[in-house]
């Protein structure tokens, strides 16, 4: 099976936020939650770069390790998903995540966290693939339809790549060699303990 990953080519990202919008629209993500976001580093200075970031679907995911109810699981495609049936909204995955991916809808004015929500790599959740219940809880399941995550598919400059690790690493490597520069595979070292050697 494939080892699915995201790769944001910061030298191509133009901070158009289409990935953020596509994600929110595709999955009907509730108010106040952004499964994907675009961060601009060194804004207005030489060397400014924008990076689109979401759950990186880590190898040996910290969220899964600290979850008190074991609600996380890793699919055969190495996508890290979670069950909102089991999630108790304790906040531990948020403390552990290096990418700020887990978010919680506020279910009451008393500060109670709701069920955690995060990027599913457009792969739904533990409910039946493509079911209405799955859509309501986790959003669209594009992977089950043989499609890649919409954020990457929508990307106007093809900065955001989604797909099998080897395949997107090869594409990125070719780009870097051809243009002669690249600011690296953002988050890979943190998420996968490896990066792309050029």
């Amino acid at each position, binding site marked *: 099976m494939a080892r699915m990953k995201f790769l944001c080519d910061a030298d191509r990202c133009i901070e158009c*936020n289409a990935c953020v919008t596509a994600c929110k629209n595709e999955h009907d993500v509730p108010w106040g939650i*952004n499964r994907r976001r675009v*961060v601009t580093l060194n804004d207005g200075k030489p060397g400014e770069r924008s990076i689109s970031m979401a759950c990186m679907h880590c190898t040996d995911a910290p969220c899964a390790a600290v979850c008190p*109810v074991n609600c996380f699981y890793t699919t055969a495609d190495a996508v890290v998903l979670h069950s909102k049936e089991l*999630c108790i909204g304790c906040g531990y995955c948020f403390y*552990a995540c*290096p990418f700020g991916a887990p978010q919680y809808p506020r279910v009451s004015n008393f*500060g*109670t966290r709701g069920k955690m929500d995060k990027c599913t790599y457009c792969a739904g959740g533990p409910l039946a693939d493509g079911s209405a219940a799955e859509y309501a809880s986790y959003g669209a399941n594009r992977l089950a339809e043989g499609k890649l995550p919409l954020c990457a598919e929508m990307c106007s400059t093809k900065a955001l790549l989604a797909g099998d690790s080897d395949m997107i690493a090869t594409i990125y490597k070719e780009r870097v060699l051809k243009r002669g520069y690249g600011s690296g595979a953002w988050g890979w070292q943190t998420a996968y303990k490896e990066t792309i050697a050029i």
Partner: protein
Amino acid sequence: MRFSLRSLVATFAVAMALFAAVPAFAQQPSSVNPTASAVQERQLLDALRAGTPGQGTTLSGRITIPDASAGNLIQPQGQAWRVFHQGAMHWIGAIAILGMLVLLVVFYMTRGRIMIEAGRSGATILRFSTFERFIHWLTAGCFIILALSGLNVTFGKFVLAPLFGEDAFAAMSQWAKYAHNFLAWPFMLGLVFMFVTWVVHNLPDSTDVNWIKKGGGLVGSEHPPAKKFNAGQKVIFWSVIIGGGLLSLSGVYLLFPEWAGGVLALQFWNIIHGIVAVLLIAAMIAHIYIGSIGMEGAADAMTSGEVDLNWAKEHHSLWVEEKMGKGSIHPHAAAQPAE
């Protein structure tokens, strides 16, 4: 003349254009390297790691979402918190709680139950008023549920999940979380009441020094004099006030993350909450032991509030002397003479 002026202007314009073009031309050599000024993840992380203590290794930038914390791109410190929570926290909790249980079993086997040496007198004296007992049990009842639901978050998946199955365990944990979040408030109220009611009796004084020197009656059979609270009880009081205060502070931050100021603060408060909690649980296990099976007559103080006069004389001699002067002794209707 006119013609030559125009040609002069034209020549000047061409010269200016060339002058401007030369440096522009020079800026486009084939060896340009845009990466030289581009931000590199590894460089940024290394730079952060090297300097600015307190900032950690958070990579952050500008974001259009109206949530400043979403501007944090990468913050690998979560991995350190994970290592603590899945490693040291388990050990600290297990050693503190199981260690205290082992200590108490050993103490019970060597010292046995601490009996009223003079036996029950039959006469009683009011030790705790209804209000005092109410705030004790308000805080204690909340604490027991808070402790169990808190331990469940750290240890439940190893101990209870295999017994109940994932679904039942998750449903139970959900209710435990609600209980934890909501009972925190009456617990904090109880802390405030206990502090106000009992602080005057818990200020350290010279009797405590003597009490500690003589081992508090825990070792040996001598009963050093004590006022309403002996030094051991004062330690319990201040453990509850300070420990409970830290648990409240850290708990409120964890409950309202926006007040804590970022994920690094939440990791810190979670560590404080966890360590203080297991230490206070260990202290409360000892408190429950000595208030129940560990000592004859002690439990009366928090049930009926009326303790046996002989028990009071042995454990709180100075307090009894003070009370005797006020005539607070309640002889039983069917008083038995002390044997």
